[in-house]
């Protein structure tokens, strides 16, 4: 579920809860108001009923006063009281319109009040017949006799009505109290719920604000980092451009130097060798054996110097030239190199073994130089070995192709293995094996330029194996 739709659902839930609690509170309030209304209503009925008792007493007192004195004041009082009585009864009847038992009682009351008033009326009529003086008590017999009974029955009826209303009042007070408590509890409940909602909303707001701040801080940090990165990049590019141009200059110098070495250093050597030979050939008659030996040694020195210069040039060329990878048949290339070496020195017999079909992505020119040096070395160090064998092979080690050149020649002591690949380090004296001490350094550099590794295993008198890898993956 997406974040937005979750928020919408939460908002809808909150609205429903608020509406529900509002409705609950309104309902409780309504019940309370209703209960209070009925309580007041009952009190009104009671008050009206009570005033009725007083009015009946007033009517009786006025009637008696009139009968006794014949004063028109009492007659007027009586008329007003009866009017009030009728009015009050009508009121009570109207007010208790919903209560059948009260209505029955009121009908009875009306009859009893009527009969009471009828007795009083009879007395009043007697008085009207005798405008002044005492009245014969016998004439008033009905009034005198009747009075207490009828009054009691009226009072009893009113009392019944009142009792009923008091019972109702008690009920209604109880109802009101209940409604009151319900209002409070509902209000508390609604308030608590709304309060919780408010807290939840506030919490969400705080969290959203914190997230916003964190995002803003993150964005600021990212933009700062970006700026730094851009600056660093620009610096780096400048530096790379600078280094590249420096490197180009130094490469150019190196090239000029190599060219000069290749040309100028060899020229005097050729002169020395040429004239030594001329001396040997043209002035042979003037030279004894010693002289001829010296000349041979001079020429030998010149050859070695020439070889050194060539090896150095090769080493520098290997460093300078760019590695151009292509599919190279290593079996074919190593065999070709072996055949060339053999053709140049047919007196030395060596068996050649090459694993067929070994192919790699590499610089063919550089690999040819590597093979020339490795097979050349193997050739050199098997010179005094009977049944000499040189082998080219490959194997897989740690998911990488490992190639090797193996011979069964002079070998070397493993304790000097570290010095093998350093320029001008030689493990064999010139007396045994001639060499420049640069060949393996050149091979090592070629392998390194292919992002590969080179190492050797050997044993004195039992031969040597040179392993190397060519990181073919990096090239593609």
């Amino acid at each position: 579920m997406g974040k937005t739709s979750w928020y919408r659902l939460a908002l809808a839930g909150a609205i429903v809860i608020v509406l529900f609690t509002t409705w609950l509170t309104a309902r409780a309030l309504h019940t309370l108001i209703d209960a209070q209304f009925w309580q007041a209503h009952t009190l009104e009925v009671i008050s009206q009923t009570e005033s009725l008792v007083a009015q009946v007493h007033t009517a009786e007192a006025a009637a008696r006063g009139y009968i006794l004195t014949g004063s028109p004041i009492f007659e007027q009082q009586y008329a007003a009281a009866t009017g009030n009585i009728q009015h009050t009864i009508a009121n009570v009847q109207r007010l208790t319109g919903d209560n059948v038992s009260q209505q029955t009682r009121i009908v009875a009351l009306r009859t009893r009040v009527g009969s009471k008033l009828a007795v009083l009326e009879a007395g009043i009529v007697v008085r009207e017949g005798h405008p002044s003086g005492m009245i014969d008590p016998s004439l008033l017999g009905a009034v005198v006799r009747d009075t207490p009974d009828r009054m009691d029955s009226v009072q009893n009826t009113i009392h019944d009505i009142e009792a009923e209303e008091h019972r109702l009042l008690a009920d209604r007070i109880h109802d009101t109290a209940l409604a009151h408590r319900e209002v409070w509890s509902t209000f508390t409940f609604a308030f608590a719920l709304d309060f919780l909602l408010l807290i939840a909303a506030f919490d969400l707001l705080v969290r959203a604000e914190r997230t916003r701040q964190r995002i803003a801080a993150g964005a600021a940090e990212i933009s700062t980092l970006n700026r730094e990165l851009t600056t660093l990049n620009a610096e780096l590019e400048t530096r790379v451009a600078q280094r590249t141009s420096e490197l180009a200059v130094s490469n150019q110098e190196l090239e000029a130097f190599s060219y000069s070495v290749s040309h100028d250093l060899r020229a005097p050597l050729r002169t020395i060798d040429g004239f030594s030979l001329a001396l040997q050939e043209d002035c042979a008659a003037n030279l004894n054996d010693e002289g001829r030996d010296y000349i041979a040694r001079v020429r030998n020195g010149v050859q070695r110097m020439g070889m050194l210069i060539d090896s150095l040039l090769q080493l520098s060329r290997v460093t300078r030239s760019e590695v151009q990878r292509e599919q190279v048949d290593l079996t074919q290339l190593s065999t070709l190199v072996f055949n060339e070496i053999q053709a140049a020195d047919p007196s030395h017999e060596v068996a050649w073994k090459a694993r067929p079909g070994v192919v790699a992505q590499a610089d063919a020119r550089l690999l040819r130089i590597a093979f020339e040096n490795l097979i050349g070395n193997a050739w050199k160090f098997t010179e005094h070995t009977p049944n000499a064998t040189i082998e080219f092979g490959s194997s897989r080690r740690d998911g990488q192709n490992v190639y090797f050149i193996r011979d069964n020649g002079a070998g070397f002591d493993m304790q000097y293995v570290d010095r093998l690949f350093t320029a001008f380090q030689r493990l064999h004296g010139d007396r045994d094996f001639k060499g420049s001490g640069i060949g393996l350094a050149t091979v090592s550099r070629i392998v390194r330029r292919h992002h590969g590794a080179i190492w050797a295993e050997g044993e004195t008198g039992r031969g040597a194996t040179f392993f190397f890898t060519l990181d073919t993956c990096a090239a593609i």
Partner: protein
Amino acid sequence: MILLVEDDPDHEALAIRALRKANVANEIRVAHDGAEALDYVNGIVKGEQRMPQLVLLDLKLPKVEGLEVLRAIRAADKTSLLPVVILTSSDEERDIVSSYRLGVNSYIRKPVNFNDFAEATRQLGMYWLLLNQCPPPQ
């Protein structure tokens, strides 16, 4: 006649000795720098100098580079088909490529070992002066 362009007098002497040893009997004219070689080529064009059968040209020369001399030889109609062999100490790839681009007939690196050089010279003389059929003079 062979035109040898060589600035080093020692090498000049050794080259002439090697040619003689190889039984090359032809006359050998020597130009000691690039300018002298260019003069000679101009002389051929003007008809003042004889056309050589072969030019042996060193690359590293004072005043004018050997490659410039080669360019001049190939540029002139009269000498454009003249056999030119570069004889030099350099085995730099760019020199070899430039020489062949400019139409050299052969590129030989002078070995330090003079025996090898003598053998190369012998074969050179045999090939260019005896076996090879030169283009007709223009």
